[in-house]
């Protein structure tokens, strides 16, 4: 019997503002525009209208749907409404569909992420806001991503989406650019919207969301009716900005946040100088969507709630520890990404297992679903967590997490096995507004480059980028906030890091190498200092390093290398020192200073200084560009596709998952397909056709949730007792039936598997054509980095030698005896690349695309998505490739 937790004792007073402070902040607001609207009655989950806000700036809106009414204010601010048409409901459904619909109409082919016409569109979906079933508060946010330059869809938990909807709107568009910091307030009970300047509020979410919840709630009880969308200061100097959606946790008496993590949409938000969007709605209940058949919804809800009450503790423990329960599982199955996806397990994983978090950090028995009615309640929090670094050092905070991805990405993948650093990084990612997954993967890439000696401590101004440096993991973000330091480069993401490292780093010009002695130190492969230093010596500068001998560091080679460097111990426990501060180089006369544009044509081997204003720091070191071999090396292990960092599952041994990641429309996020167990362990999809079928069904099924406002976890993170008797247990048919029931309950329409897949496939296909429109969407763009396909280095091969030798023999028919490791790698990787090629062929065929990945006209017609806008985009490609159909029935498409 769980203890009844009514309240959690928290020590958050240092960042929860007083009423007086709030009143003073509010008094500084200048209202730029207000808008009053008629309340609407939701019918079958739709208001049938959306909210449009421009925060100023000049751009072309002629292609967008017209405003049915609007109000103009100061600074070019516009607030208005648009109709949600029957075509939109029919073909786009809601959620991601409505987002992409508006985004398509907002942008041109050459629109960059930071153009004023870029649009941040938020939409929940027709099922969002029901209270009876688990996971019904979600929204999808879309925008052109700074990482990919393509339309990106990011998934986030409740409460904002339902509040937006019950306030009267099926979607919210945020377009334009402001010169002053703004807050947008949607009062769903008074039916008013205002856009106001907001100079004094914080920008970082954990404080800003408290400030605004206090500011706009009428009283304590009303706080549960407020939800804030915000980002953070790191989103202003990086491409990985995220959005935080807040809700008020009554048991903790503090604000909690969920993330629209991926894609960098927070950077767009902050670039527009929007500080926050606040929604207030009082009066949520199970009827708020005016469902057609409430019985279906109630009955499905109670069935699911009963399952969670009966089964969760015997299965995944979602309520206790959420998604972190799979950290140790992934490690045992060799799927936990370790050291930038080199390995799938690490002997130190027990230090960051879910047990450790349960015992030491995460508050137990406090249900905290991210919307009403979520009996899965997977959100978790570590309360009263004291920060060691950064802007809020010394403060005790509530850390929302750790989700599995954070424990993987901020843990094993960067070699960090200290749960404190993982939680601290989790916290700072959230409040500073950056994506934990991208931060983890991009830091892992930067670390591997450092470990391979592609750049060194001098380049990072003393920040040690070896595996396991939890301090650096956080310091990078503090530097993003400051807009200064190596963190600014890392924060641009893996794709930009490759470019910047190639342009800016490399070997020191050989004639100046002698100056390295005593000045800086080359990175080495194994950690130099891996023994604990007693607390008495923290923060002392170990200038001559002789003192290290007292702690057992007697390796003369190491001590000579770091002689003359001062070391600062940044740990708060027995962690080792990680910071070195090499002396800066004196600028050498006679070496030219060149601009960024000149770097590309500069001869290799000729030293230069750069005055690049984008990366403002210099250290007086004369650079020489990276060699072409080093550049090619980075391409192999830079784990990004289409510009987005890979998420935290090791896909190296699952061909289906390699496809699941690389063939994803937005970039390698696992929300389209997670097939690793079905493929590798269960061996349920052995042929290319089987895999292609799975890569058709699962992306279509999984993305369906994002049209409706639903969370995917209740679908398969608890298993009904009778599931094992089903013919297709991996589809969890009992839960699919629940979804059909609630869908029918709200909308009145009866779905089956085919109609559900078709509903999703329409928006999926639209997104594919949209990325084609924006310069991606062809076979070459779906090609993954080589490391995602298999072992590219001797270390990787030898770490799993038996497995790979067996594959050489059994799958490829080659005898590994007497082969060198290099040769074995060459053979196995050629095989893997060929397998991937064949998989892509099979998947494109199944999806109704050409071998180059272009959606065929016949497929658009079949889905009734043969809209002129889409036809015009695919037509030139299909004609050039010889796939434009002839026949009188297709004639009209020639002139569309």
């Amino acid at each position, binding site marked *: 019997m769980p203890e009844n937790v009514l309240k959690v004792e928290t020590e958050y007073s240092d960042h929860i503002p007083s009423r007086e402070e709030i009143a003073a902040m509010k008094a500084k607001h200048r209202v730029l525009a207000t808008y009053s609207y008629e309340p609407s009655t939701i019918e079958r989950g739709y208001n049938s209208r959306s909210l449009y806000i421009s925060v100023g700036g000049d751009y072309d809106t002629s292609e967008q749907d017209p405003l049915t009414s609007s109000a103009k204010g100061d600074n070019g601010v516009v607030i208005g409404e648009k109709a949600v048409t029957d075509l939109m409901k029919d073909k786009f459904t809601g959620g991601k569909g409505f987002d992409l619909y508006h985004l398509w109409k907002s942008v041109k082919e050459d629109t960059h992420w930071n153009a004023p016409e870029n649009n941040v569109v938020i939409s929940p979906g027709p099922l969002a806001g029901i209270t009876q079933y688990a996971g019904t508060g979600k929204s999808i946010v879309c925008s052109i991503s700074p990482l990919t330059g393509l339309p990106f869809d990011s998934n986030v938990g409740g409460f904002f989406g339902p509040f937006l909807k019950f306030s009267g709107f099926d979607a919210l568009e945020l377009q334009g650019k402001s010169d002053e910091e703004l807050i947008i307030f949607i009062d769903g009970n008074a039916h008013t919207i205002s856009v106001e300047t907001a100079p004094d509020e914080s920008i970082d979410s954990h404080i800003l969301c408290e400030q605004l919840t206090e500011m706009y709630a009428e009283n304590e009880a009303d706080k549960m009716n407020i939800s804030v969308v915000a980002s953070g200061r790191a989103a202003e100097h990086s491409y990985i900005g995220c959005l935080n959606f807040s809700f008020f946790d009554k*048991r903790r008496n503090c604000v909690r946040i969920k993330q629209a993590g991926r894609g960098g949409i927070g950077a767009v938000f902050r670039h527009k100088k929007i500080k926050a969007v606040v929604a207030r709605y009082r009066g949520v209940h199970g009827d708020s969507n005016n469902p057609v058949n*409430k019985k279906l919804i109630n009955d499905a809800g*109670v069935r699911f709630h009963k399952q969670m*009450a009966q089964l969760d503790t015997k299965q995944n423990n979602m309520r206790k520890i959420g998604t972190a329960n799979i950290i140790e599982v992934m490690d045992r199955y060799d799927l936990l990404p370790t050291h930038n996806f080199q390995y799938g397990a690490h002997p130190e994983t027990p230090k960051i297992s879910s047990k450790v978090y349960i015992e030491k950090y995460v508050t137990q028995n406090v249900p905290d*679903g991210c919307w009403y009615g979520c009996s899965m309640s997977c959100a978790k929090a570590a309360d009263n967590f004291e920060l060691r670094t950064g802007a809020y050092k010394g403060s005790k905070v509530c850390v929302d997490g750790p989700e599995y991805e954070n424990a993987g990405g901020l843990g094993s993948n960067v070699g960090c096995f200290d749960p404190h650093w993982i939680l601290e990084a989790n916290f700072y990612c959230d409040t500073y507004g950056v994506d934990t997954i991208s931060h983890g993967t991009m830091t892992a890439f930067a670390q591997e480059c450092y470990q391979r000696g592609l750049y060194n401590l001098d380049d990072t101004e003393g920040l040690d980028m070896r595996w396991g440096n939890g301090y650096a993991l956080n310091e990078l973000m503090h530097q993003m906030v400051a807009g200064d330091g190596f963190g600014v480069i890392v924060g641009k993401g893996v794709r930009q890091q490759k470019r910047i490292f190639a342009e800016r780093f490399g070997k020191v010009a050989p004639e100046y190498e002698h100056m390295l002695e005593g000045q800086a130190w080359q990175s080495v492969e194994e950690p130099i200092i891996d023994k604990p230093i007693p607390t008495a010596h923290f923060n002392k500068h170990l200038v001559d390093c002789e003192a290290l001998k007292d702690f057992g560091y007697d390796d003369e080679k190491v001590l000579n290398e770091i002689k003359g460097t001062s070391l600062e111990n940044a740990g708060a426990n027995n962690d080792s020192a990680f910071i070195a501060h090499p002396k800066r180089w004196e600028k050498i006369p006679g070496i030219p200073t060149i601009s960024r544009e000149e770097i590309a044509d500069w001869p290799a081997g000729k030293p230069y200084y750069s005055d690049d204003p984008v990366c403002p720091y210099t250290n007086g070191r004369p650079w020489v560009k990276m060699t072409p071999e080093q550049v090619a090396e980075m391409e192999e292990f830079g784990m990004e596709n289409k510009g987005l960092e890979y998420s935290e599952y090791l896909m190296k041994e699952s061909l289906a998952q390699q496809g699941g990641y690389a063939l994803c429309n937005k970039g390698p996020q696992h929300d389209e397909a997670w097939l690793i167990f079905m493929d590798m362990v269960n061996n349920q999809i052995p042929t290319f056709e089987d895999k292609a079928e799975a890569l058709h069904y699962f992306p279509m099924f999984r993305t369906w949730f994002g049209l409706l406002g639903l969370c995917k976890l209740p679908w398969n993170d608890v298993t009904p007792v009778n599931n094992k008797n089903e013919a297709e247990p991996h589809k969890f048919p009992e839960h699919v039936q629940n979804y059909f029931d609630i869908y029918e309950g709200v909308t009145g329409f009866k779905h089956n598997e085919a109609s559900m897949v078709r509903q999703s496939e329409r928006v999926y296909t639209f997104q594919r054509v949209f990325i084609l429109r924006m310069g991606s969407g062809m076979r070459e763009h779906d090609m993954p980095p080589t490391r995602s396909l298999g072992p590219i280095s001797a270390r990787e091969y030898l770490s799993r030698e038996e497995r790979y030798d067996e594959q050489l023999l059994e799958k490829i028919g080659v005898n590994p005896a007497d082969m060198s490791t290099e040769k074995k790698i060459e053979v196995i990787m050629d095989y893997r690349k060929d397998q991937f090629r064949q998989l892509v062929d099979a998947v494109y065929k199944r999806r109704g695309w050409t071998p180059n990945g272009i959606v065929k006209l016949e497929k658009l017609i079949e889905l009734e998505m043969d809209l002129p806008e889409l036809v015009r985009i695919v037509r030139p490609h299909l004609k050039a490739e010889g796939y434009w159909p002839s026949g009188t029935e297709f004639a009209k498409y020639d002139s569309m």
Partner: protein
Amino acid sequence: MKKLVANSSKCTGCGACEIACSKAFYKEENREKSAIRVTANDGGYNISVCDQCGDCIWMCSAVALSQAPNGVVRLNKKSCVGCLICVGECLRNFFFYNNDLPTPFKCSACGICAKACPADALSISE
């Protein structure tokens, strides 16, 4: 701890308790709106009614459930959003829902059914 105590061995299955409960709270004679349920069981009858154990309180997503000083577990209907997690959480099925009603319901130990019972099978303990 105040709660309704049921002695199933005395029950005759007349259903007077169910009628009394639904009539008192929902103005209807409808056992589907009663917080006490009688079912036939193995030649006799089984009375099913909340014993105020409080196991449902922790999962309420609107924090609308609380235990009063006298031990009775109460639902604040104004705060309730009708999510029905409480109904699912009670594995003994003492929390009920009805599709006509906006919020779920359970025994509040008012004693009306005890007065209506002709077989002396129900009583309120304090």
